[in-house]
């Protein structure tokens, strides 16, 4: 039984293994961290625990979120503790057992390609499953904020 928590980022549907997701919460009060990696949006207070928030749009190299859109938080467990991924909208939990899939689409280029585990072909759209371990372990200094 494999279930994915799904969410949309820049009109594409993404998913991650549900067992890695601790919770999903609404837009949170964010404390920005100057001088941090560009894709680190800031820090949030999660019931007394300080959790880093990473903007998935930036992490995946997608265009900036429009100002009026407030991101949802998908809080995941990683080796380094909790991490909150900022996404546009939350989708349903989807069962992917038996759904046809392929590798990352040929048209996908750039850093995002390494972060895609597989692409599920749903009836009405494609569901891109992210390799969560790669997402939470950025190896390069990519995504720097330009001053």
């Amino acid at each position, binding site marked *: 039984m494999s279930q994915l928590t799904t969410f949309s980022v820049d009109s594409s549907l993404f998913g991650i293994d549900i067992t890695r997701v601790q919770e999903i919460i609404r837009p949170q*009060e964010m*404390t*920005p*961290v*100057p*001088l*941090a*990696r560009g894709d*680190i949006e*800031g*820090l*949030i*207070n999660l*019931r*007394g*625990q*300080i*959790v*880093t928030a*990473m903007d998935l749009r930036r992490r995946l190299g997608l265009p900036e979120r429009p100002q009026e859109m407030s991101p949802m938080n998908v809080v995941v467990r990683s080796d*380094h*503790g909790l*991490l909150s991924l900022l996404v546009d909208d939350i989708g349903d939990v989807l069962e992917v057992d038996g759904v046809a899939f392929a590798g990352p689409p040929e048209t996908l280029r750039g850093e995002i390609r390494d972060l895609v585990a597989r692409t599920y072909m749903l009836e009405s759209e494609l569901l891109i499953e992210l390799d969560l371990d790669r997402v939470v372990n*950025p190896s390069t200094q990519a995504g720097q*904020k330009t*001053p």
Partner: protein
Amino acid sequence: MNEETRLRSSDILESADERNEFIQDFLVESYESLDRLDHDLLALEGDPESAEAIAGIFRTVHTIKGACGFLAFTKLERLTHAAESLLGLIRDGLLVATHERMSVLLETGDAIREKLAVIEGTGDEGSETYSSLVDRLKALQADSADETAAHTFASPDSESGLASSGDPDHENRSAAADSTIRVDVQVLDGLMTLVGELVLARNQIVDRAAVQHDASLKTAAQRLNLLTSELQERVMKTRLQPIGSVWSRLPRLVRDLALAEGKRVRMVIEGEETELDRSIIEAIRDPLAHLVRNAVDHGVETPGERAGSGKAQEATLTLRAFHEGGQVNIEVADDGRGIETAKVRDLAVSRGLITPEQAIDMSERDLHLMIFTPGFSTADVVTNVSGRGVGTDVVRSNIERVGGSIDVQSRMGEGTTFRIKIPLTLAIIPALVVTSGNQRYAVPQVNLLELVRTGDEESGRGIERVYDAPVYRLRDRLLPLVDLGAELGEKPSLPSGRGSDAPATIVVLRADEQQFGLVVDGVNDSAEIVVKPLEHYLKGIDAFAGATILGDGRVALILDVVGLASKAMDAPGDDQRHLSSLGEDVAEPVTGGAGSLLVFTNAGSDRMAVRLDLIERLEVFAVEYLEHSGSGDVVQYRGEILPLVRIEELLGGPEAMFGPGAGPLAGIVGDGAQVLVHRAGSNRLLGVIVDDIVDVVDAPSSLQPAGRPGVAGTAVLDGRVTEVLDLDELSAGHRDAAFSLVGAPA
């Protein structure tokens, strides 16, 4: 009490469960008493007259004996009874508290501990009778002739004698013991989780209340908000323990070691109330013991050796703990022989850890740090005491495992100091909250010296600039300034441009040995904040030392004062934080010569100065006498051709001197040029044009180092920030540039 009247636990306790519960209580209390026992025995050894110590020891042993009787632990009862008899004689002044007696009593304490462990494990006291120990305790109750000397006690009056042999429940406990209660750790952790859930519910209520138009609901939600934060913080505080609990066994360890090696060591302990999170306390227990063992074993010399080097025969071993900037600092210092660098070098080479060539290049400090290398031990013979194969490298890895660091500073013949720094995962430190760019940041109060507001009528002066670097004159000190907004890559807090009288807020901070001023937009309240370590993704940023949650539930970053200082100033990076640089001024003062400085103005308000002895004469030349020739402007002077140059041309380099647009004549205002005639070589003169001569003053004894070539340093002269130029360097540069551009001078 005789056998018949003694109550047995089986008469009183109803069930096995009740008995177990009683045993649990007994164990917990007894372990605690035994720690006190060690402490009291050592105190008694140090001061055989101490009635307080002997009373405490007697009470402890008596209490344990009583419980043993109740629980039918006959072997343990026999042991404690023998100890109690011996103690009674000492207490009544009939026997002296000799080393031998103290040693046996300390051994008895250990034996009791062993027994308690057996009881803890099996519920029963086991088979060990400690008969030889009991015999020794009895033997020592006999008085030997040479003992009944000076040290006797005033026998306690019958009142207290009665009390101490009475019912344990009515014991006279110290006030401190009464004001605390024991709580199971699991209960505390459970509380923390509950509070966490409460915070979640609080968040939801606060969110919903915010969009309601019900004012009283909003007020209630706000109160709930604050109360929950406060509750959360206090529950987290319960996990903190004073470091004294780790240190409690160390004095005994030192005593036994010193005795075994024929050395005399006195322990000084400071800061035992410094608090750390439970988990860290466990992690540093062994490393600390090892460092202490090492100090006594290798560091401290025998009394004979010490006397020979003019030291006091008794060595001092200091344990210090204190909070600084969100970290716990622990120092283990001895005044022994210090790390023998030659020995270290030789050993390292013979072990193949370094080559002989490398060994020559290594500084003393490098060699000191070698002791942290795996496989390194200065003990030629591994002594029983220090143990086998457990090196200082293991100490370091244990400390680094909890995110800490360890450093060593040593001087041969004087002693060695180990300093451990551990970031606190949970530590509450007082901090000042400041604002920059609409965000709040916390500054640890321990680094805070004062707050200054510039630009008011009272303070009178504003921020000045030396070249481009902002500084502030604080009571005759030049305080380098760091613009927090600029450092964070955001909007600068300081207006740009040279000098400013606009109001600014400066937080004067101290980082290690350096002082500097942090310019911020504003200052909020002081707060006690819980320090949380920086998240993995943010670890590399040196501006921040951690993060915290402020009273209103929002996250704020904690500034790393040392990181800010080294980033912003032209100071060497990491080295500056090493212990070896403490005691050396990081800002190496440049010694000015004795003598005088000639102060002048240039380009309006900038003040500069040069050594008076480098100036031959001060001249004023009327504009019409200035001529242009070949490479530059000149004037005829006493039969020679005197080349002229302006200050900024000298400072600016060849392009400024000889490029297009250069030429001193361009800038001359008024009738004449003020020229400092400088003899640059045996037959070379240079005329330096300045705006106005101000004064001749005494040279200061030291200058603050400057950031650019040609400037020897800066100082406050005549009440103004002044750049002191190195005229020799500048004129040499001028000559070289002239050569390179136009060939040999005519």
